[in-house]
């Protein structure tokens, strides 16, 4: 029986150590793009992502804009989960922590300035390479979980990768596009509501 148990463990370990990796091709632009990966073509919709699985190895990736103009042509070595960044856009990996009531913060925070915007007391890492090995928990379109549950932990660090304009929006440096349709009166109301929130003791 013990032998069966060991065989199962070995099998599971083998199964889990398969050399297949999850890749995300991100398209932060407002235009659809075509990604040619070796002999396969993927369409990535505007502001969307495409999830693919690849086994480890070398790949040639060509990315085309809708008018068939070549956006990028790169060789990559796949050896981990990763995100493909065809536009060489700036992404920010935002490391944050989840704490229980008894948890003590251990995250190192500092101020970061990105494109003239000052982000205060945060832990950021910026990336703009074509192939970004995955070191985060939440992908670009995945929201943060509000809570996580553990038996033995009071403090856990989690990270999320952001497109820069999503980060700007989350930190108030950029307003949602639909705000451009508001008139001055409606904006006055929003400014007033924001002011009220700022006056709350917790802020």
């Amino acid at each position, binding site marked *: 029986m013990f032998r069966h148990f060991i065989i199962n463990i070995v099998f599971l370990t083998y199964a889990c150590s398969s050399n297949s990796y999850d890749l995300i091709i991100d398209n932060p632009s407002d235009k659809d793009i075509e990604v040619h990966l070796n002999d396969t073509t993927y369409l990535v919709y505007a502001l969307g992502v495409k999830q693919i699985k690849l086994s480890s190895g070398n790949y040639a990736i060509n990315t085309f804009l809708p008018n068939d103009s070549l956006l990028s042509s790169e060789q990559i070595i796949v050896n981990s989960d990763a995100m493909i960044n065809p536009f060489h856009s700036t992404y920010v990996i935002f490391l944050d922590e989840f704490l229980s009531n*008894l948890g003590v913060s251990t995250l190192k925070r500092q101020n970061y300035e990105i494109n003239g915007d000052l982000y*205060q007391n945060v832990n950021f890492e910026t990336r703009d390479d074509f192939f970004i090995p995955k070191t985060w928990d939440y992908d670009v379109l995945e929201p943060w979980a509000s*809570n996580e*549950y553990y038996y033995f932990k009071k403090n856990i660090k989690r990270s999320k990768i952001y497109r820069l304009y999503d980060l700007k929006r989350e930190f108030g440096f950029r307003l949602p596009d639909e705000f451009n349709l508001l*008139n001055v009166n409606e904006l006055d109301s929003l400014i007033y509501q924001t002011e009220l929130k700022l006056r709350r003791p917790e802020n």
Partner: protein
Amino acid sequence: MFAGLYFVIFTLFFLCFYAYTYEQSKFLQSHFKQINIFPIVKDSLKRSQARYEHNQLINTKKSLTDLRQKKITSDSINRIINYDGGQKGLIDFFNALYDVEKLNKGTCRIAYYGDSMIEGDLMSMTLREAYQKQYGGRGVGFIPIVSLTNKFRISVIHDYNASWRRESLLDISKLDFPLGISGEYFIAEANGSNNTVSFQAPNRSFVNTFPITKLFYGKSKTANPSNSLDFNGTSFSLNGQLAVNSLVLSQTPLKGVDLTFRTSDELPIYGISFESSSGVLVDNFALRGNSGIAMTALNQNILGQFNNDLGYDLIVLQFGLNVVSENTNYDWYKARMIRVVEHFKHSFPKASILLVSIPDISKKNDQGVMQTRTSVSYVIEAQKNAAMQTEVSFFNLYQAMGGEGSMVKWVEELKLANDDYIHFNFKGARNASNLIFSFLDKEYLKFKENDE
């Protein structure tokens, strides 16, 4: 039996080990499911966003304020670039302001013309304070001898006796003399001994003294008049032979002045100017009931002579309240305002011109609900088109207030306007004027960035 027991113990031990290791291992978390084996409640770990929320709110407020400012000015035009070499939007004004600010050279003077919306120095008072605070300058500027709103005005304490006769461009059939820069002239009673006027500087920043005092008067019709002025006990002759005569009465700062005019014949007196020799000066020229179209009655030669002395760099024209009706066709108003703007362009060739639109104006509809009057948008369109056609700058005050329905909000919610749903109160005039200053100053900053 013992083998079975060992197996159960081993399995339990393994599951506990797995449950513990799972929480420590990212690999297990991403590839396997968690098992809940311990008979205790898990701790809930929460992401604390409070740390960022304050900054997020501050940034959001700033972004909203910036967007609001952009909205306000998006419909206003500063025509700096003009390819035919004529008037160049606000560039003459900005050049003069730049000389004042950077080179400490001379004055930059603004003539603020308007209807009842600006009477009592409303609007212009705040603009003056804002400019003098930022770019220097002292004094309340040009004041007519007689004012219908002297008791209401707080930027100068003004009193006069009843012997004065006032004529204005609103009734040109009565005119015996050319109108002055304010669209008025004032006649002292001939051979009268009681033609007095007094001014006191109020206890307000920038206008609390009269740095230099100048009188502007016209020419008598008789060949050898005997006109004089008693100014704070000193006598001055008023026998100038020009159509517009200026007389410096004092070059030392004064807190108050008393003037008594003695005239042998009718003599048009235009007004008095309290001004500094440097910085920004703003003159308020309000004429209640003036739609603006009558401004062409001002003689260009006379305006030019005033301009030789006063040196205007910006002419603000804020009219239109008196043409708001139930009509929707204001092509005639556009055509007349084009003539007015051209008239001022010729009279003040080195000054920029800014046309300020009417504000929002509301009226009860058939259901008894206050709402923006239909013709407001048509009047504004006519004003904007007049500005575009004459290539001068335009400020959309209506839009800056918040657009449709904003007057109701300004009256009922913000308490910035009177119950007539037309006129601002003091606080509202200050707010509205700050919007204009904000637009002008933002454009000036752009001008400096381009220049530097």
